[in-house]
């Protein structure tokens, strides 16, 4: 079958898709977007996390047909013209990446967390909230501490940027949580 969808803002069509293919397979093998990783393929690790119509999902358990006509955003779609997304930059700066297999999924899920909190004008998420939202993303390398550092850093930077935009920036605030 043929599956058309919007991926990272572009309309794409994958031909000869076998109905049994997962969205993850289509993205990686047919659309040349290997950012989303295939680790467990059974919904347990979150390394395949992508946005499907604005909600993060495990692409390994989405049948290709289910994504037809929808909007998909993968880790490749997060960086803008101005460079890396704040979450991506923070993962680098905080040293939250070791083998990197879990990283794309964690970045999408952390991006979602900040979109729903700081970006929406809410408070910076606390550690309990960060842990719960990232609970579906497993990492076998880092022990999670640096990942939490990265999310805290990205949240603090975004909060500082929002405050600056509102004309009440305080110098140094951007590095809170480092």
């Amino acid at each position, binding site marked *: 079958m043929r599956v058309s969808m919007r991926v990272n803002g572009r309309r794409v069509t994958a031909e000869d898709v076998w109905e*049994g293919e997962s969205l993850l397979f289509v993205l990686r093998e047919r659309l040349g977007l290997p950012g989303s990783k295939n680790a467990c393929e059974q919904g347990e690790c979150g390394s395949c996390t992508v946005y499907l119509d604005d909600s993060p999902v495990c692409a390994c358990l989405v049948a290709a047909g289910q994504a037809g006509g929808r909007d998909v955003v993968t880790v490749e779609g997060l960086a803008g013209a101005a460079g890396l997304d704040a979450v991506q930059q923070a993962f680098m700066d905080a040293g939250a990446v070791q083998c990197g297999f879990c990283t794309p999924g964690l970045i999408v899920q952390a991006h979602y967390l900040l979109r729903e909190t700081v970006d929406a004008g809410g408070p910076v998420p606390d550690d309990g909230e960060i842990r719960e939202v990232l609970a579906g993303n497993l990492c076998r390398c880092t022990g999670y501490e640096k990942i939490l550092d990265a999310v805290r850093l990205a949240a603090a930077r975004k909060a500082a940027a929002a405050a600056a935009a509102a004309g009440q920036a305080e110098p140094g605030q951007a590095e809170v949580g480092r």
Partner: protein
Amino acid sequence: MREFGYQRADDVPGAVALLAADPAARYLGGGTNLVDLMKTGVEKPALLIDVRELPLDRIEVTGSGGLRIGATVTNSDLAADPEVRRRYPALAQAVLAGASGQLRNMATVGGNLLQRTRCGYFADTTKPCNKREPGSGCPAIAGEHHNHAILGASAHCVATHPSDMGVALTAFDAVVTCETADGPAELPLAGFYLPVGDTPHLETALPPGALITGVTLPPAPVAATSRYRKVRERASYAFAIGSIAAALDVQDGVVRDVRLAFGAVASRPWRARAAERALTGGPATAEAFAAAADTELAAAEPLPHNGYKVALTRNLVVAMLTELTQEAVR
């Protein structure tokens, strides 16, 4: 995986007609269980009828003060709904205790009720399993069963139902509504899951080809003081090894109304009616809570490696009812 077709249903009658035309077809909700089981070859549908876009995604307060929840409401939307949180807090907590955010975003109410057991032998097509292949045997009974049933099981299958959501729905007397080729039908959740007996492969009383359209919760003032607690082998994101949904109304130290349901102990969410009867009209004390739990669990038949569930469930009853009593007094 086998080859199969995929089709999106336009409306409820259309979905039912599609399935009636192809006995090897299956409805597809979020796919978080069905797609998984197709990968391992446990499920082999010839056609997937995607029902997730049907207009069954609303949560409405009924005239009597209950709730009507559409079958395609996602687990995320169900847990976030203000009316659910206010009227049936244990339901929102139960849903949030299940799976991960990513999975809850895809998973639907209908699919959650019909998700299959997490018994490892069931998922492994190289092993015998009466549920997957009737008559092939149940290796769990003499094998790995530390998370299997202690209540209502049989010599043919000792699997548990993994849903957290279903435990809270059971405590609150939910009624499943469905659409069949002959029109709409209703099934109380209490009779929705069939007894195991010697037919563990027959899991629900849903008529053949029926599409679940929603779940109705009757009004239950007691549910406003309710909680769900889940015990897992890690802090988050794991199936329950024991769980409880409880609601309690206490006045002057006397139990006026109580709802209790257990998870991870049986092939279905387990409504603890014997315990409820023992408690109603009696004192709200830890001793009474423990005695009521013992009444319910007297029927337990633990296997060599899951006896801990009896004590775990008893402790959950006492702890939860004690907490709810304190909450009611405050």
